[in-house]
């Protein structure tokens, strides 16, 4: 299963959701933000090297951390050397080798978002309860539909109890999981570990768990 995490707007928590989903789903998280990576990196070949033909996708996967990662390079020089269309093959190769892949798509609606959705069997839409984020979420949702990445869940990040989840679910057309605002999430992400590791009892950790379950239920029927 290849799952794309998209959002449209930046800063809504796509990478956090992707990373924590990767932990719950036991998947490789691919940071597909070719121009501005933000998932923890480290040393070794990265996605830029893969897309420039300098490394194979599988050898660029880092298994040492709590979540297996295929990080993206952070150098502009690397970003300008890579061939973005190879992202599809790279992700598929990782999927063949590892089974499950979560693709952390960048913000915006540019080609790398589309490539992440194109390769994905299904997608998760991350948004926050703000008009700007919801507007972008709708656009991302339309793009996902175009590219046959079925929307399996909407993550309402930093949500509160007063958020009209039902309206959002109706409008976006998928069940909504609310991940409450919780410093434990940000702290865990900053430390490069899933929140389920550092704060398993928090509502946020439970929300990610529910989300992963919902995706696993939906995944078998979302194969192209």
């Amino acid at each position, binding site marked *: 299963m290849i799952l794309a995490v998209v959002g449209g707007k930046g800063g809504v928590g796509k990478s956090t959701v992707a990373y924590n989903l990767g932990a719950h789903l036991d998947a490789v998280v691919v940071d597909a933000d070719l121009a501005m990576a933000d998932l923890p990196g480290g040393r070794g070949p990265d996605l830029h090297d893969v897309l420039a033909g300098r490394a194979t996708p599988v050898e660029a996967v880092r298994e040492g951390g709590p979540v297996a990662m295929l990080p993206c390079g952070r*150098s502009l020089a690397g970003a300008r050397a890579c061939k973005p269309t190879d992202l599809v093959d790279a992700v598929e190769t990782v999927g063949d080798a590892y089974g499950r892949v979560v693709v952390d798509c960048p913000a915006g609606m540019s080609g790398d978002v589309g490539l992440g959705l194109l390769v994905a069997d299904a997608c998760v839409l991350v948004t926050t309860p703000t008009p700007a984020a919801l507007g972008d979420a709708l656009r991302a949702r339309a793009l996902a539909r175009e590219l046959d990445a079925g929307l399996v869940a909407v993550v309402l990040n930093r949500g509160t109890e007063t958020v009209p989840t039902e309206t959002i679910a109706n409008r976006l057309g998928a069940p909504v999981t609310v991940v409450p605002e919780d410093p434990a999430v940000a702290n865990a992400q900053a430390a490069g570990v899933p929140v389920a590791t550092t704060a398993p009892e928090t509502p946020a950790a439970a929300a990610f768990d529910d989300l992963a379950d919902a995706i696993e239920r939906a995944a078998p029927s979302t194969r192209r």
Partner: protein
Amino acid sequence: MVTLDWETDRTDGVTLVRLYVTAEGRRRVRIENRIEGPVWPPREEGQPAAGWDDGTFEGVVAPGHRLVAGYATPEPPTDPPAEVVDDDPAGAETPLGPVGAEAVETDASGGRATATDGSGGTTTGTFGRHDNGDRAASGPTEPLDGDEPTPEGVVRSLGDPVVPREAVPVPDVLEDPAGQENGSRDEPEPGPGHDTPSDGESSLTQEDDSPGLRKDDSPGPDEDDSPAPREDGSTAPFSDETAPASSETAGGSGERSVETEDGAPVEKPAGDEAGTTPNRAGLSLEGMAQPQTDAELVVPGPVRAWLRDVDRRLAAVERRQAAETTDPDPTVQIAVAGDRRALASVADRVETLVGRAQAVEHGATDPDDGGR
């Protein structure tokens, strides 16, 4: 003969129904929901999607394609969830897909399709689907022969996400964001054995041997958590953070101790600096550059670092081949092949630029010659 397949899926109090229609001839079919309760068709901008009318869906299907439709209902699924209630032959001119869907045509480039009529469109582009010159159904008609959006089509439609090359300055500052690559390349004891045959040669080559071999043939993940056995990784990760603990104490201990015992590397002749200043990228780069360039010439750090890495990889392979004690490491072989390609492409570019530089230089010094 029309065949209706379906899948149902109940999530969060909602039943999702997927319908797949195939036919042996070009048929116009009408499908009706059989689940008690309201039908929630897909909507575009608040309007039921093309083909939907009050709980029934109508579309045209042809051999080799399948017509797909989906809807939701709050009621639990039944078996079957829907039935074909009407099934008529359709003319070849009838577009495939839901009835009333706008047709889309591929433009000259073949990549992007635009809506040609109607409003409430269901699609904005085909992302490079191959339409075979046919009128493509804009809606849910899936060709069965594997026509799908292509990566190239996606990039054509949405734009290339990669930073424009011209917008990126050549990173000749050492602490640029590429520090992961450049910094760490500079940091490893920069392969002096091959470039700087100096008085310290014997000890230096030895030192270089061990880390070099180790880097190239050691599968990173086995020894530490930095899975970087080759290319960039071959030198960067091992020497930068993870390796010092192991490789420098093992293979590079001599080098380190030499360096520290000798005190500042500045004491050493220039050739040795390269080998003995692993922590000062600039210094080591200077040392590196000297065998290759005039002293005044400045080659950007990353370029020197890259060439040094290539040099070291090649040297490692050469040593192994000479020794014939170990089998060739396929990883290193791949890396060397990659090096060869990269070098070849750079060489062409360099040649062109050198030619231009010479012309310019000539023109500047001998303006009377007309610049050639």
